[in-house]
C-alpha cells in the first residue's frame, strides 16, 4: 500500500453577517470601515454593568436561510446560551452562542469528491479585535470593540472531508453559497470569514488507487484518538497548504510510533509551516447555560414562510436549470460568480443571450477567460452583450467602409499581394490581420477574405 494514512478533516467556519446593526445591540455593524476604534460601541457590546442584550431578528432569519440553503433541518424551538471563558476581547467573560439547540442542523454540501455533512449551523456574537504591539518596550494588546457582538454564524461540518483539495472545495463552495444568499461579504483577509480545520490521520485501506474521489479509501466512521485544530487561515490556498503540511507532519509522528499532541496550531504562510499555538492539556470548560437575559425563539410556520419568501433559488437548482436550458456545465457555472448580485446578473445575461439567439457557450467562455468582466457590466447585461458582439462577431462596418482599409493595406503591402497571386495563399492571414488592425475592429475572417480576394483579383 502506497498511502497507509488517510486524513480526516472536519471544518468549523465562522462567517460575519452583514446586518445593519449588531447582534445584541443597535450599534452599527461595520467594523472594517469604522475609521476609529471603539466608536460603534455601547453598554451592551462593551459588557458594561447592567447592560442587557436584545437579539437581532434579521440575523436569526439569515441564519435560518443559510441553514435551508445547506439542506439543514431547522429547530423550531431554539435559544441562546452563554459560553464562558476569559479573554480581553470578550467583554462579558462569556460569549452569547448556541449550545444544544442550534437554529439549524443536519445538512449537506456537495463536493466533487463526495458529500460533506453539516452537523450544525448556529448563531453567536463576535469578539472585539486585539492588536498586539510593543509600546514603550512593553508587550501590550490594544482592544477595539467595534467588532464586538457583530453577528457571527458558525458552520460545523462532520469529519467527512478526506483531502486538502476537498477541504478547499468545501470551503469555497460554502463561501459561494453564503455570498449568493447575500448575507455576508465573507472577506477572508479581514476576518469576515474564518476557517478552522480539525485534522487527524488514520490508517486506511486503499480500495481504488486510481480514484480521485473519496471512493479511493475504505471509509469508516471511526475517528482517531486525537485531532489537531488548524486556525487563523485567511485564504483557501493557505488552507490547502496548511493541511498538506499537517498531513506530512502527523504522518511522520505516527510512523515513528507516537501520537500527535492534541493542540491548536497556526499556519505561517511565509515559511509554509504550521506551529503550536495552544496545547489543550487542560480541556476548556465553557460552562454553558441558557442565557437568562434572552427569551427563547420559536419559529412557527408563518415566520418560516416569511423567511422562505425571499429565499433565492438554491445554487444547485440554479446550476441544474442553466444546464438544461442553456447547456452550461455546472463545473463551469461554479467558476463564474461569487456573490448573489453576480449570480442574478448572470442569470439575466444568459436569458438575454438566449433570447437574441447568440451562442451561450461562447459567452461562458469569454466570461471564464475574463474577456468580459462581470464587474464592469454589473448594472447592465445589455452592455455586456454589446461587448460580447464586439469581441466575437461581424461588426457594424459596411463593405464600402472596409474597402477603404483594404485598399490602404493592399497598396502598402505589394509583396504580399504578389505572393498571394503566385499561390502562397497562407499570406491571407496576414492581410486579414492588417485590415482588422487598420479598422481597429474584429471582423469575421470569411467576410474579410472574400472582400480582399475580390479587390486583389480586380
Amino acid at each position, binding site marked *: 500500500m502506497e498511502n497507509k494514512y488517510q486524513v480526516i478533516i472536519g471544518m468549523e467556519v465562522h462567517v460575519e453577517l452583514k446586518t*445593519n446593526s449588531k447582534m445584541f445591540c*443597535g*450599534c452599527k455593524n461595520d467594523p472594517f470601515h469604522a475609521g476609529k*476604534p471603539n466608536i460603534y460601541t455601547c453598554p451592551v457590546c462593551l459588557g458594561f454593568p447592567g447592560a442587557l442584550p436584545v437579539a*437581532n431578528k434579521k440575523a436569526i432569519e439569515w441564519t435560518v436561510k443559510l441553514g435551508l440553503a445547506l439542506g439543514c433541518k431547522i429547530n423550531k424551538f431554539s435559544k441562546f446560551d452563554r459560553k464562558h471563558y476569559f*479573554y480581553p476581547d470578550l467583554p462579558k467573560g462569556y460569549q452569547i452562542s448556541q449550545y444544544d439547540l442550534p437554529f439549524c442542523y443536519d445538512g449537506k454540501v456537495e463536493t466533487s469528491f463526495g458529500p460533506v455533512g453539516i452537523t450544525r449551523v448556529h448563531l453567536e456574537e463576535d469578539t472585539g479585535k486585539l492588536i498586539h504591539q510593543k*509600546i514603550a518596550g512593553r508587550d*501590550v494588546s490594544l*482592544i477595539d470593540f467595534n467588532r464586538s457582538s457583530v453577528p457571527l454564524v458558525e458552520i460545523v461540518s462532520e469529519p467527512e472531508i478526506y483531502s486538502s483539495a476537498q477541504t478547499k472545495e468545501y470551503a469555497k463552495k460554502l463561501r459561494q453559497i453564503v455570498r449568493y444568499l447575500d448575507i455576508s461579504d465573507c472577506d477572508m483577509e479581514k476576518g469576515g470569514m474564518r476557517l478552522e480545520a480539525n485534522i487527524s490521520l488514520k490508517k486506511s485501506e486503499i480500495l481504488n488507487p486510481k480514484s480521485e474521489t473519496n471512493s479511493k479509501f475504505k471509509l469508516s466512521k471511526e475517528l482517531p484518538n486525537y485531532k489537531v485544530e488548524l486556525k487563523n487561515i485567511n485564504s483557501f490556498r493557505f488552507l490547502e497548504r496548511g493541511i498538506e503540511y499537517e498531513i506530512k507532519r502527523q504522518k511522520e509522528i505516527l510512523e515513528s510510533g507516537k501520537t500527535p499532541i492534541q493542540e491548536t496550531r497556526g499556519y505561517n504562510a511565509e515559511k509554509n509551516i504550521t506551529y503550536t499555538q495552544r496545547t489543550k492539556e487542560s480541556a476548556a470548560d465553557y460552562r454553558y447555560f441558557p442565557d437568562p437575559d*434572552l427569551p427563547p425563539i420559536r419559529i412557527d410556520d408563518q415566520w418560516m414562510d416569511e423567511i422562505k419568501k425571499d429565499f433565492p433559488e438554491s445554487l444547485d437548482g440554479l446550476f441544474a436549470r442553466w444546464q438544461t436550458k442553456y447547456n452550461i456545465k455546472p463545473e463551469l457555472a461554479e467558476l463564474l460568480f461569487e456573490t448573489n448580485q453576480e449570480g442574478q446578473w448572470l442569470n439575466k445575461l444568459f436569458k438575454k443571450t438566449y433570447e437574441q439567439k447568440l451562442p451561450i457557450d461562447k459567452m461562458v467562455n469569454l466570461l471564464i477567460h475574463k474577456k468580459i468582466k462581470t464587474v464592469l457590466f454589473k448594472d447592465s447585461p445589455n452592455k455586456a452583450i454589446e461587448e460580447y458582439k464586439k469581441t466575437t462577431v461581424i461588426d457594424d462596418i459596411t463593405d464600402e467602409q472596409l474597402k477603404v482599409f483594404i485598399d490602404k493595406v493592399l497598396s502598402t503591402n505589394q509583396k504580399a499581394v504578389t505572393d498571394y497571386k503566385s499561390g502562397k495563399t497562407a499570406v491571407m492571414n496576414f492581410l486579414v490581420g492588417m485590415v482588422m488592425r487598420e479598422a481597429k475592429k474584429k471582423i469575421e475572417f470569411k467576410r474579410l477574405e472574400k472582400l480582399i480576394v475580390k479587390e486583389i483579383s480586380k
Partner: protein
Amino acid sequence: MTKISTDTVKVISKLAKLKLTEEQINKFALDLSSIVGQMEEIKNLDVKNIAETARVIDEENILREDIITPSFNQEQALKNSKSIHNGYFLVPQILKDD
C-alpha cells in the same frame, strides 16, 4: 458528603480567574464543603422526566428589528478605563496569536 478539596478550589478558581492565597484556599475549601454538603440534600430527589427551567417568563421571540441606534463616542466608551492608548483599551499582553 462531598468534600471540596483545596485542589478543587485551586482548579475552579483558575476557571473563574480568581487568584487566591493559600489561606483563602484552605478557608474556602472548608466553608464551601459545608455549603455543598447542605446542597447535596437534593441528591436523592427524583427528577426523572422533569424539564429544566431556565427562565420564569412565558414570552418568546422578543427580538429587535435590524436598525442602527446611536452608539457611544470614543470618549464615552473609554472614560471609565484606567488604561487606554490612541482610542484603544490597552492591556498587558497575555497570549500572542490566540
